């Protein structure tokens, strides 16, 4: 899987209230949520972001609540991937569960700048900065996570599992 896009850069500890404020959680419609993505971190962001863009952030991205609305809002806004130094753990599992590929890389988070064009080789864990002509490595994705992403997320994975182990034929 190769992901290519333009970068929006954020800092450390971007919490789920910044990604999708609780005041919009009286709905779980992805399109509605996407209208407010990252709004409390950057008011203009929902108007600026384009399909295919990539978010780069510092440490502890997605900290705070367990709301799956956060990765859903990101995905529904067309953002292909998030690269951060580290992720809060519930955000991490939610992203894989809904099939949003995310990557951890200190180097990429430090060196990539707003507006850079990057290309992620998900299988190899390599992030290329096309604008700067640099290359960084991301932490390898654990095999189980690869399994989840290639199954298309946890629901499809569970569906398969139920068929094979819970309802033996």
């Amino acid at each position, binding site marked *: 899987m190769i992901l290519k896009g333009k970068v929006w850069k954020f800092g450390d500890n971007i919490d789920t209230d910044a990604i999708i404020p609780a005041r919009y959680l009286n709905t779980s419609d992805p399109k509605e949520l996407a209208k407010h993505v990252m709004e*409390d971190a950057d008011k203009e962001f929902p108007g600026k972001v384009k399909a295919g863009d990539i978010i780069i952030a510092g440490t502890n991205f997605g900290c*705070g609540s367990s709301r799956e609305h956060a990765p859903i809002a990101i995905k529904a806004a067309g953002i292909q991937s998030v690269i951060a130094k580290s992720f809060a753990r519930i955000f991490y599992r939610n992203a894989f569960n809904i099939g949003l590929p995310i990557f951890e890389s200190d180097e990429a988070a430090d060196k990539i700048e707003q507006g850079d064009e990057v290309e992620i080789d998900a299988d190899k864990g390599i992030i290329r900065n096309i604008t700067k002509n640099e290359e960084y490595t991301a932490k390898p994705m*654990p095999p189980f996570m690869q399994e989840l992403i290639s199954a298309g997320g946890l629901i499809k994975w569970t569906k398969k599992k139920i068929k094979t182990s819970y309802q033996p034929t």
Partner: protein
Amino acid sequence: MTITEKILAVHCDREEVSPGELINAKVDLVLANDITAPIAITEFKKIGASDVFDKNRIAFIPDHFAPQKDIKAAEQCKMLRDFSKEYNLGLYFEVGRMGIEHALLPEQGIIVPGDLVIGADSHTCTYGALGAFATGVGSTDVASAMATGECWFKVPESMKFIYYGKLNRWVGGKDLILYTIGDIGVDGALYRAMEFEGETIRSLSMHARLTMCNMAIEAGGKSGIIVPDEITEKYVKERVKRPYKFYTSDRNADYIEIREYDCSKIPPVVACPHLPSNVKPAAELFEVTIDQVVIGSCTNGRIEDLREAAEVIKGKKVNPNVRMIVIPATQKIYKQAIKEGLIEVFIDAEAVVSTPTCGPCLGGHMGVLAKGERAIATTNRNFVGRMGHPESEVYLSNPAVAAASAIMGRIATPEEII
């Protein structure tokens, strides 16, 4: 092994597990609320399972925007109600019977020591106070677990926090955990299990333990846990409806890090905007004026918290520049507070008292802040926009400090009042 590793091992039928391993484990209870259950329900239907794994092990609690604050919230709550009827769920709590989930489930004896609990709510880690492994997950995890009774986990490394020394007056579980988060930071325990122990913890009452474990997530923790003892035994004995088991940590268990705190040096503290780790002694913040005080939430909305606030505010009036909102966390707590005359104390002080709800804690309803307003709250998060407008501010404290601040119209300590 640590208590966390033992509980996880038992739930995947293994003798042993070690940190870093990915396991599939059986869950004892699955929880979701009016924000997270709707997604879980939609995803569950996609799986095509013929039934839920166990109708008495799935708890649906509408508490965030309930009593339904607007039409959209009402539609979400209705999804929980309809699904609960369709699948005959035994643990659906309707308005009038509900409370804030993390206060309600332990109170009702629905969670027992040794359990493995997942909830589509980050503060699910609260139940570690009972000696259970409990962690917040997403709605999709809940959907999958509702079908299979299982969930995937990475076995966390454990980090030990040892508390010793006598607690100062007006210092409680909230101060200990805020102090700890202030020390290690909001990602200081990322992916880890936080195990609280030491002589101070062993004499700490259950409500304070629940407050501490509740905020493990605010340090990035996967869970907070306290090895069960006589205090646990006393708390669960009179409530639980299922058999339970006490697990302990082995003496030679491995911890990635051990930290010690001398509690006699910890004063009442406040977490300043906009991170729970931005902790300062309350006594250094007297110049901070406030517009609103909130006493409630899954962190500090229990009867002991209300007693503490009432003790400070009894016979006094809320400052004319301040709105004070008191929210008992469950119906049972509400009733008990009426019986003890606490509600009268609050109303006489000119505070408003609400039916149980999360409400202002997440900026939902029942006390949302305007631009530029400032609140002190006994809740657990003070992120940008958490209680309302992105340019409002939230300070976090224990109930006594919050009540004292309500009287003074600025951040205050109970000593100034009593």
